[in-house]
C-alpha cells in the first residue's frame, strides 16, 4: 500500500512540475500609475519604486532595458537582477538623476522607455521549434519647459477614401513657462508639385504655461481630387513667433497593382517565382492571396495568404515545378484577390534549359581579333617546327655521309642517342 501511494505521489508531483514548466511570466508593479511623469528639476533626483513580479515557476534571469534621448539620466537601483527564484518579488528603484542645467535639452516631452526582460528562454525539445520569452516595458515622461516662448505646432489627418471629407486636426502645445497671449494656425494643402490646393486659418486662442490645446477641426472635401499623397502644412503663429508642422495625408483607392514577377525559370527543377504586389489603399489590406494560371504549363498556383500595409508593397513567392516542362515561353495570368476585388496581370514566363543556363554562366567568348592572333601564333610555331625538323634531318644525313668517307677504326663506335 505504502510504496504504491508514494509512487502515485511521485507521479502527481512530476506531472505538476512538467505542466508548470511550460508557463513563465514577468511583470512590473508600482504604486499609482505604471507610467510616471515629472518636470525637469535641475540637479534633482527622483526615485520611483517598482517591483519585478516573476511568477514563473523556475529560476529566471532578468535584465533591465532603457531607451530614449534622456535614458542616460535614468538609472536602476540595484543596477542588475541576475537571478530570481520562483515567486520572489524583486524590488528596485528607477532613479531619475537630472543634470544641473537643461541648456542642452530640447523643450518638450521626453519619453524614457524602460522595462524588464526574461533572459533565459526555455530550451526546445527536438530539432525544429520555437521558444518564447516575454518582456514588459513602460515609460517615464519628462517635461522640459523653456524660459522663452516655445510652442510646438501639431497637424494630422487620417487617410481618406477618394471623394470623402478630410478632417484636419491642429494643435499647439506650450513648452514654455510663460503665457502665450495669442496663438492661431494657418493650414495649406499642397499637391506633389507643391501647388497649393486649399488654405485655411483657425481661431485665435490663449495658451497657458505647459498647456496643450486643440483648435477647431478643419474639413476639406476631396471630391475631384486624385488619389495619392498630399502635404499638410500648418504654421502656428504665437506672440510674433512661428512654428511649422508638416504631415502627409493619403487619399487612397482600394486597388492593388501587380508590379513585377520572376520572368525566367529553369527547366528540370522546382523554381521560386516571386510576385511583387503593391497596395494603393490607405488602410492595411489583410487576407490577400494571388493565383497564377498557365494553360500551356498546366499550372494553377496559389500563394500563401498575406497582408500589405497601407501604400506598401510585398514580394510573395510561389513554386513552379518545371521538372517536366519543356523550355519555351509560357503565358501566365496572375490575379490578386483582396477585399472581394481582383486585379489581373497577364504576361509571359520563359523556361530555359539547364544547359542554356550553364552556357550563360560561362565566361565571355574570345573576340575575333584574339582568335586570329592565336591562329597566327600557332601557324608560326608549326612553321618553325617544320623548319627545325628539316634542318635536323639534313644535319643527320651529312653526318652519316662523313662517317662513310672516314677509314675504319679498331675501337667500337660510341653509342649515339636516338633521335625521335
Amino acid at each position, binding site marked *: 500500500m505504502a510504496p504504491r501511494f508514494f509512487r502515485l505521489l511521485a507521479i502527481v508531483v512530476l506531472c505538476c512540475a512538467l505542466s508548470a514548466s511550460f508557463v513563465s511570466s514577468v511583470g512590473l508593479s508600482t504604486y499609482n500609475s505604471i507610467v510616471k*511623469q515629472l518636470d525637469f528639476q535641475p540637479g534633482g533626483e527622483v526615485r520611483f519604486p517598482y517591483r519585478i513580479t516573476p511568477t514563473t515557476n523556475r529560476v529566471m534571469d532578468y535584465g533591465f532595458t532603457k531607451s530614449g534621448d534622456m535614458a542616460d539620466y535614468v538609472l536602476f537601483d540595484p543596477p542588475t537582477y541576475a537571478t530570481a527564484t520562483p515567486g520572489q518579488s524583486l524590488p528596485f528603484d528607477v532613479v531619475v538623476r537630472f543634470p544641473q542645467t537643461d541648456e542642452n535639452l530640447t523643450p518638450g516631452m521626453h519619453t524614457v522607455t524602460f522595462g524588464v526582460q526574461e533572459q533565459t528562454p526555455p530550451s526546445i525539445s*527536438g530539432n525544429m521549434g520555437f521558444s518564447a520569452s516575454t518582456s514588459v516595458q513602460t515609460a517615464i515622461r519628462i517635461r522640459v519647459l523653456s524660459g522663452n516662448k516655445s510652442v510646438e505646432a501639431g497637424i494630422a489627418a487620417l487617410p481618406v477614401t477618394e471623394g470623402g471629407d478630410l478632417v484636419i486636426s491642429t494643435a499647439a502645445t506650450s513648452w514654455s513657462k510663460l503665457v502665450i497671449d495669442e496663438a492661431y494656425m494657418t493650414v495649406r494643402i499642397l499637391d506633389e508639385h507643391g501647388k497649393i490646393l486649399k488654405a485655411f486659418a483657425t481661431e485665435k486662442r490663449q495658451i497657458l504655461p505647459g498647456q496643450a490645446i486643440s483648435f477647431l477641426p478643419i474639413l476639406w472635401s476631396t471630391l475631384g481630387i486624385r488619389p495619392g499623397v498630399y502635404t499638410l502644412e500648418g504654421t502656428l503663429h504665437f506672440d510674433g513667433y512661428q512654428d511649422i508642422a508638416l504631415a502627409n495625408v493619403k487619399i487612397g483607392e482600394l486597388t492593388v497593382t501587380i508590379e513585377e514577377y520572376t520572368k525566367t525559370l529553369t527547366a528540370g527543377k522546382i523554381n521560386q517565382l516571386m510576385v511583387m504586389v503593391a497596395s494603393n489603399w490607405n488602410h492595411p489590406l489583410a*487576407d490577400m492571396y494571388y493565383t497564377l494560371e498557365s494553360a500551356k504549363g498546366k499550372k494553377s498556383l496559389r500563394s500563401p495568404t498575406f497582408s500589405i500595409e497601407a501604400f506598401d508593397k510585398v514580394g510573395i513567392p510561389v513554386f513552379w515545378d518545371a521538372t517536366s516542362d519543356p523550355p519555351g515561353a509560357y503565358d501566365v495570368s496572375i490575379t490578386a484577390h483582396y477585399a472581394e476585388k481582383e486585379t489581373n496581370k497577364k504576361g509571359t514566363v520563359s523556361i530555359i534549359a539547364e544547359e542554356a543556363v550553364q552556357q550563360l554562366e560561362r565566361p565571355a567568348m574570345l573576340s575575333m581579333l584574339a582568335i586570329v592572333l592565336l591562329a597566327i601564333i600557332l601557324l608560326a610555331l608549326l612553321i618553325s617546327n617544320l623548319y627545325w625538323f628539316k634542318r635536323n634531318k639534313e644535319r643527320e644525313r651529312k653526318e652519316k655521309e662523313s662517317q662513310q668517307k672516314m677509314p675504319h677504326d679498331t675501337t667500337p663506335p660510341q653509342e649515339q642517342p636516338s633521335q625521335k
Partner: protein
Amino acid sequence: MTEVSNRTLAILLVAAIAISLVGTLISLDRIGKLGGVTGLVTINQSESTGTVSVTVTANAEVTLRVETLAFGSWRINGSTTTKNCTLTSAINSSSNAGNNFTDFDFFNGTGASAGADCIFISTAGYSPPSSFELENTGNVLFTNVTINASKNGSSGGEPTSQTYDFLINETGDILNYRVMEEGNACSDTNAAIPGANGSTGVVSTNNATVCKNFNYTDAQDAIAVQINITMPSTTQAQSATNTITFKAYAFGPI
C-alpha cells in the same frame, strides 16, 4: 485481542464525520443566541467607525501559458507536386488557465496541420504543438504587444548572416503567424494588424504588432499566436530553432 475490520473502520469514520458536522451546525446556531463574548458584532453595540486601508498597486504583467513549440523532426516528400512541407501549430480551443478561444475564431478554423509533403521522422504519431498563448495577468492595459524572432525566414527578408537565418541557405522558407483573441482581448483597431482577424503576419527579426490595447479583464485577456512554417523540398538537413520575444508595452495614461 480481535482485529478491527476495514468495514468497521469505514463505518466509524463516516459516523465521526457525521457527528462532527452536526456538532458544528448546533454550535453555530447556539452561539447566535448567547450574550457573552462570541466574536460576533451585535446590533446593539454603540456605533463606531473603522477605517480599512487597501492599496492596490498597478501591475503590468504578462504570462506566457505556452512558451515552446516543438515540431519534431521532419523530411520533405519529394514525390508530390508541391514539395513544400508546411507545419502549423494547434488552435488553443480550450486551453490553459481557463482561457477560451472558441468564441472568436480568427484562425477561421485553420488549425494544426502537417502538409501532405511532410513526413514525420518518428515511429510515434505526430502531435502538433499548441500555439503560443499570452495572457495579461496584471491590472494594466498594454497599449501594444509585439512579436519578433531571433531569425528570419525568406518571407521576413533574407538575412545577411547565417546567425539570423532560420533555414540556412534556403530562399523558400516562410515563417508566418496568426493571432486569435480570447473574446475582445485586443481593441477593434486590431483589424488593421497583420496576423489578426484571420490574416497572416510575417515572423521576422523586426518587431510586429500582434495586439493593440491588450485587456486585463477576465475572459478577454489572452491571445494565442499560431506559428506556421513552410519548408521547400531543397531544405538541407539541419536543426532549425528560433527564439520569439513578446514585448508588452504599458504606455497608458499617467
